[in-house]
């Protein structure tokens, strides 16, 4: 039981990260109906920006108070990663809007290759470790198993991740549901042409969608950096595929669905590694992706698509 609770906590933490990335996929798919393949790499770029900011703050400016450092890193990473998200959309997707559907998919794959290799060339191929920053936690449960005593730890790191995700999600839901920008976004999602006729600046709305997705991905990147303490230029691919799986599982186009899907994928992955084999945890995620798409193409919270002839 204790082991189960511990895995549950770990799964929720990992799932929060996936969920934050998944939102970027689901929003972009909802609004322009394309898979933003480079989104996983935007997440990776975000984590590198967070790392560099962190190092600059600690070594050059000599900051020592961790909460301030993390807050500045968070803001800087969100701003700069947003610029990356905007640029990717502007260079690779906007010129192809209205073109046939495979074209942006190919440029997205191209952009993914570009981002990975750009980071590899400029930052080196070796992985970048940082020492654990946030240590300690609270013990919420203790028990004894046949292997000896076991304590369920909820570390401060995990708390921060889960709470930050919650806060961002609430803010984000409000943004989508209550602000003119969110209204424009939902309008574009339903019917881009009609929205344009009614005076919504569609290009700008789409750009902002990418910017928001990138900002959330950068938060996920920072969390990934803090949680695992090591990043490299290739982390974007797997995280991206898993986050996309999460978006599909939750129902692509649905924001709560993306978060739910992220949590489920995180839980499945952690439980799979905890109870079965760690080697095949990626197979588990990929199989779920295939199974969901085949048997439940509209996902858990998505609207079923009606095919019109």
């Amino acid at each position, binding site marked *: 039981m204790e082991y189960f609770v511990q895995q549950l906590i770990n799964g929720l933490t990992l799932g929060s990260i996936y969920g934050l990335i998944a939102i970027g996929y689901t929003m972009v798919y909802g609004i322009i109906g394309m898979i933003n393949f480079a989104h996983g790499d935007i997440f990776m770029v975000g984590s*590198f920006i967070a790392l560099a900011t962190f*190092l600059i703050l600690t*070594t050059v400016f000599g900051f020592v108070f961790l909460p301030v450092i993390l807050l500045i890193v968070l803001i800087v990473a969100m701003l700069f990663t947003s610029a990356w998200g905007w640029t990717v959309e502007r260079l690779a997707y906007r010129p192809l809007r209205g073109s046939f559907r495979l074209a942006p998919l*190919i440029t997205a794959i191209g952009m993914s290759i570009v981002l990975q290799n750009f980071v590899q060339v400029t*930052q080196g191929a070796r992985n970048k470790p940082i020492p654990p920053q946030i240590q300690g936690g609270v013990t919420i449960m203790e028990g004894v198993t046949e292997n000896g005593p076991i304590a369920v730890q909820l570390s401060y790191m995990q708390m921060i991740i889960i709470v930050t995700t919650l806060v961002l999600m609430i803010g984000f839901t409000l943004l989508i549901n209550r602000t003119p920008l969110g209204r424009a976004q939902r309008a574009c999602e339903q019917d881009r042409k009609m929205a*344009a006729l009614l005076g919504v600046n569609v290009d700008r709305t789409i750009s902002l969608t990418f910017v928001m997705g990138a900002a959330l991905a950068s938060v996920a990147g920072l969390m990934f950096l803090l949680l695992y303490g090591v990043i490299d230029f290739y982390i974007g691919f797997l995280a991206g595929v898993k986050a996309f799986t999460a978006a599909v599982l939750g129902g692509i186009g649905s924001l709560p669905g993306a978060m739910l899907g992220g949590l489920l994928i995180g839980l499945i992955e952690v439980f799979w590694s905890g109870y079965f084999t760690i080697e095949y945890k990626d197979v588990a995620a990929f199989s779920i992706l295939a199974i969901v798409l085949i048997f439940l193409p509209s996902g858990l919270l998505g609207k079923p698509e009606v095919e019109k002839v």
Partner: protein
Amino acid sequence: MAAETPAAPTSSIRPEGAQRSLEERGNAPVVAPANDPNSMANSVRDAAMAAALTFVLGFFFLGVRSDFAPGGLALEFRWGLLFIAVAIIFVARLLLNIFVFRTTKPLTQRMGSTFKGVGAGGGLGKWLGRALFAFALVLPFFFTSFFPGQSRQYIDLAILIMTYIMLGWGLNIVVGLAGLLDLGYVAFYAVGAYSFALLAQYFDIGFWMALPLAGLLAAFWGIILGFPVLRLRGDYLAIVTLAFGEIIRVVLLNWYEFTGGPDGISGIPKPTLFGLEFKRGEGGFADFFGIPFDNIHRFIFLYYIIFVLAIVTNLVTLRLRKMPVGRAWEALREDEIACRSLGINTTNTKLTAFALGAMFGGLAGSFFATRQGFISPESFTFLESAIILAIVVLGGLGSQIGVVIASVVMIGGIEMLRNLGFLSQVFGPGFEPTQYRMLIFGVAMVLIMVWKPRGLVSTREPTAVLKEKKRIGADMVAQGEGH
């Protein structure tokens, strides 16, 4: 500048954009608006914005680099590099603005009209194809006689390009003809390579015996993986095939007892010419024909194997296009619902496409295994699928000659970077051009796609014709969009 011709460069504007710009303009006179977007000031401002953006984007990547040092990561600042990049972007964007983007007479348009005759001519594609075929036929001897010093290197490159051409043609059946977007094609490549390697390892079977078996096994896997995805179309199909490709790779990586895991399989036998091995000494190829032994013979032989395999792929595809199954593929690509209402069995149609595409992938895979002599899951990553798909799409979906052009441009171009060692004299001794290969590949992929979304070859051969054959624009062909 603007007063010369009021005509906007219509070719580059999409209907949507044209509509919008018309609305924005309203009934105002087209000539000399108050704030001319083509003015020099606006070009400079735009370039300055691009430069500022470059500064923002490059700050943490070009300006700062974290590296290992005693006691954790240390920072290295490279402001010079950052400012060079910003300056390059500023100048490049300014030049582009002046000559292409913000002028009524873009340079590209003039160039385009100069080259208009090229490629549009009906017979040219055919003649280009024949010329390329003839060149490919004599290619090894061309290199051995004209570049004897580097012939091995060039023939090796030709083998690589030919492998990608074959893979491209194989994938073209699935994506170009049947319109099924497959992002996991490398799985079949892997199945073919591993089939041969494992058959050779466990049963001691040679290349020629294993080749058809590998093709069959790959086709079998194509059907197995094709079954579950029959209902899916478009992007979803792409993602599921990607997932399958990754599953196969992860299984190959972790099934240590059977596949050797990350260590891969080595000592894969080389192909023989009717039992003649390409080895030095008694009973070898050179000995049998009484010619002096040369390592190049094996490369020439390998080249001809892949050449024949690729040509077979092409011929089979061309023949199948004329047969009912090929027409069913194309009908499926154009409209699945219409296809079904006409009584075409879409299940079988899709499965044959998957199986045939997979089979050619498998054949190419076993060739890859025998050429390398060593395989490991490293060679079958998603990137490989992306490269093959990029070749097919960049060449022009459904166009056979397009695959050839795209393979030569992308693979050959990338490999040519290896010969750019002299650049290290310009950029300093630490400059390594090969590490930019994939970066340039990605950039080329994006640029070509933005420039020509329908691929380099923009016309398609119709399959069924009445009286005379007319070329059709690629825009008229559906591309697996799933609607």
